[in-house]
């Protein structure tokens, strides 16, 4: 990837389409392998947590889902910045392809968080800064997807969506700190989520492997999605016609 020529070459959809197609199976396989290894370590080998019993095992999906939900938003904002600065076609398509997966990750983070919270704190939901911010992140994903879906012209959709992503990414720290401040003023029940339990090495490895699994999964799904978007957007170009006359690969 250090070769500048290559990067520019693959910025063209016609060149990126087959490359993405070739990469999908590898990322999918990596996701399955990391997932199996992570589940084996996390669910079968890792010892019981001395504070939280077996309930802590939700961490093996909760933390990766939360990480991915935040990371995907940042990656989308990165593509948005590239797209607005260099006017590249691929950037907007990448951001759009990532959005549904990011929203699902945010949802999973909230869902597993609620199921973790119920036995640990006795309630499905606390207005903790992190949970609240995750909920707002889900709203931001939904807003982005709604905006892009409402605009018929794909170029305008890319740019408007990109601008919204950049505004969102500037606002996320402000939102997070305001919610955090609000939370410290209002905190009734003394639930502290910030003190992390000391983790055994197997637990940590299980969590990291699961995070890699989620990461590879997101890339694979986003690549399939971006390939579909490319065909749709460029349906009047020669390379799409040729691809369609072939087998779609």
């Amino acid at each position, binding site marked *: 990837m250090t070769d500048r020529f290559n990067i520019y070459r693959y910025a063209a959809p016609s060149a990126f389409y087959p490359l993405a197609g070739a990469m999908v199976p590898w990322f999918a396989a990596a996701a399955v392998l990391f997932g199996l290894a992570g589940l084996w370590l996390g669910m079968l080998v890792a010892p019981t947590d001395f504070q939280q019993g077996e309930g802590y095992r939700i961490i093996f999906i909760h933390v990766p889902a939360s990480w991915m939900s935040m990371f995907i938003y940042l990656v989308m904002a990165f593509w948005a910045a590239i797209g607005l600065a260099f006017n590249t076609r691929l950037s907007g398509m990448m951001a759009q392809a990532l959005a549904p997966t990011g929203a699902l990750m945010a949802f999973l983070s909230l869902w597993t968080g609620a199921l973790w919270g119920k*036995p640990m704190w006795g309630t499905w939901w606390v207005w903790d800064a992190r949970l609240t911010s995750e909920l707002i992140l889900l709203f931001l994903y939904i807003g982005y997807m709604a905006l892009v879906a409402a605009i018929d012209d794909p170029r305008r959709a890319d740019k408007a969506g990109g601008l919204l992503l950049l505004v969102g990414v500037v606002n996320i720290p402000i939102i997070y700190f305001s919610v955090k401040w609000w939370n410290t003023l209002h905190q009734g029940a003394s639930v502290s989520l910030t003190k992390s339990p000391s983790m055994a090495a197997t637990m940590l490895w299980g969590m990291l492997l699961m995070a890699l699994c989620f990461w590879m999964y997101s890339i694979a799904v986003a690549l399939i999605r971006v390939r*579909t978007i490319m065909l749709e957007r460029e349906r009047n170009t020669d390379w799409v016609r040729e691809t369609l006359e072939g087998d779609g690969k």
Partner: protein
Amino acid sequence: MIHWNSFSEFLAMGGYGLYVWGSFGVTALILAVEPIVVARNRNNTIARLKRQLRAERRITE
């Protein structure tokens, strides 16, 4: 090396079974359904674009 003594113990998760399997179940469901939806979407798009292409060819020929 395996932490559990029996399968039923594994399922019970030390009394947290509902919460742990509720989390893992929904996650597994979503991570299984999303690729299926995405792949179907892709196949539908390809089929539709191919139909359009054939229709265009018929008009121009």
